[in-house]
């Protein structure tokens, strides 16, 4: 029909779909799912790094880390607001997260065991996120695209901070360098897995491409990430834990070992090292804060209805 034709034309012309525009239900639902998952990832992603705020090894690093975790809360709020333009409330989305009915990025189901993990998350995890997200700045849904522009800017900043942490460690004492290498060893493959299953096994992808939500395949983005990291690792003086990693002259790209996708599926399914812990942490914060939220609501209600009290 006409609405659909107009919608397709807007997409075709690389224009933005805006909240009040008509859109196919699958487009709306797919976007809600994706934006919500992205928002949840920011909120849950605060935990592994938050784990080191109290123990950051210098006051400067403590301030940087605290600001970063705060940024993530801000990104979460910003993304929930983008999702709300599609007609779903933040509370409803948070309920779905708490109920385990919507996902967040599986990378946050790994523990942060040392301070160097904070560096590795910045360099690798934020790095992978940026490779994933930069194309989303041109995504067809206006509010999401605009949110991504702002978020990507801050993410690059975070990535650089992570890189700096690792650089300092890698050029520090032998103990510090070992800590950095250990962190890279543990985070490398989970970071590769952030790009999702290989293209052959990927669902959702083709439709997302057509609608210009997704613009590159999982494998294309993963390759881009590997090529970027190889160069940076050599400056860091740290090894990427892949004996088969080498430059392929013909492909003009690095050959590399694929991450363990069986593990990825296991973690997505709920059986990663920290899935239960992350959920329990969020549940506890939500439950412990219930009386506070109720108080705030009761107080606001009294303010909004001052005459009721007088009349009563």
């Amino acid at each position: 029909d006409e609405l659909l034709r107009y919608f397709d034309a807007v997409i075709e012309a690389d224009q933005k779909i805006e909240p009040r525009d008509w859109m196919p239900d699958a487009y709306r639902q797919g976007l809600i799912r994706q934006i919500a998952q992205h928002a949840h990832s920011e909120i849950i992603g605060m935990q592994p790094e938050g784990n080191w705020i109290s123990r950051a090894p210098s006051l400067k690093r403590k301030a940087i880390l605290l600001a970063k975790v705060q940024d993530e809360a801000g990104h979460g709020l910003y993304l929930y607001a983008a999702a709300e333009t599609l007609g779903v409330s933040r509370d409803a989305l948070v309920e779905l997260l708490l109920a385990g009915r919507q996902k967040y990025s599986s990378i946050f189901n790994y523990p942060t065991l040392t301070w160097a993990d904070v560096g590795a998350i910045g360099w690798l995890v934020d790095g992978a996120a940026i490779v994933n997200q930069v194309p989303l700045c041109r995504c067809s849904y206006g509010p999401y695209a605009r949110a991504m522009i702002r978020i990507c800017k801050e993410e690059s900043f975070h990535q650089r901070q992570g890189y700096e942490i690792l650089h300092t460690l890698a050029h520090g004492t032998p103990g510090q360098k070992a800590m950095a290498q250990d962190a890279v060893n543990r985070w490398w493959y989970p970071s590769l897995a952030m790009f999702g299953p290989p293209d052959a096994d990927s669902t959702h992808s083709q439709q997302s491409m057509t609608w210009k939500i997704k613009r590159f395949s999982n494998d294309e983005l993963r390759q881009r990430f590997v090529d970027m990291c190889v160069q940076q690792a050599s400056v860091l003086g740290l090894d990427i834990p892949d004996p088969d990693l080498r430059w392929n002259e013909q492909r003009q790209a690095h050959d590399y070992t694929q991450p363990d996708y069986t593990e990825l599926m296991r973690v997505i399914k709920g059986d990663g090292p920290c899935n239960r812990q992350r959920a329990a942490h969020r549940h506890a914060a939500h439950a412990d804060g219930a009386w506070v939220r109720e108080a705030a609501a009761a107080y606001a209600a009294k303010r909004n209805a001052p005459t009721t009290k007088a009349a009563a």
Partner: protein
Amino acid sequence: MTTSVDRLLALGDDALVTAQRLGHWCTRSPEMEEDVALANIALDQLGVARLLLSYAGEVEGAGRDEDALAYLRTDREYRNALLVELPDRDFAVMIAKLLFVSAYQRLLYRRLATGADERLAGIAAKAVKESAYHEDHATLWTLRLGDGTDESHRRMQAAVDEVWPYTHELFEEEPDLRAEWLSTVEGVLTRATLVRPADSWAPTGGRDGRHTEQLSYLLAEMQVLHRAHPGARW
């Protein structure tokens, strides 16, 4: 004119320990907006702490920078008031502490901002604006909790009662600030339908390094990594 090292440490440690306690709330507060707000306040306190500790290190002249002072002193060498080190895993206790300490810091920084120590005056001039924001935030929550539900009223009153005795120590150096502090704080408590506790017990010792049993745990966690790698840069 320069201020004494002990005095600068007292101010800086108040801010640092406050930041450390608040940092725990990030990812644990009742609302996402509150995660952001508390992180903001923690960042402000941490920022002021860094300026004050750096200055203290310079006045001392023994080559200690902000990190040496933050990470390599024991609780017996910390100079913060006991109030800021009290555990605050209860949201109401955290808010009560924040209300009392930020109201104190605002008055103190306002005075120092026009004081004879120019370096300190510069720090205080920046900090006084932040303290006003912290105080507003704590005031808002005190009102919400005090005049919210029966449960929240009960918890907020209990928190105020628990924390109140520790406020006396704040005014040992500037007793004349207490009158204005009291009028501010009493106003908030009244509007929040809370009872202002009676003055009786007045624990002290923080400025001399005699703390509660809690501070050494806080520092053990805060310092563990720094101390595990002596001399390392981060």
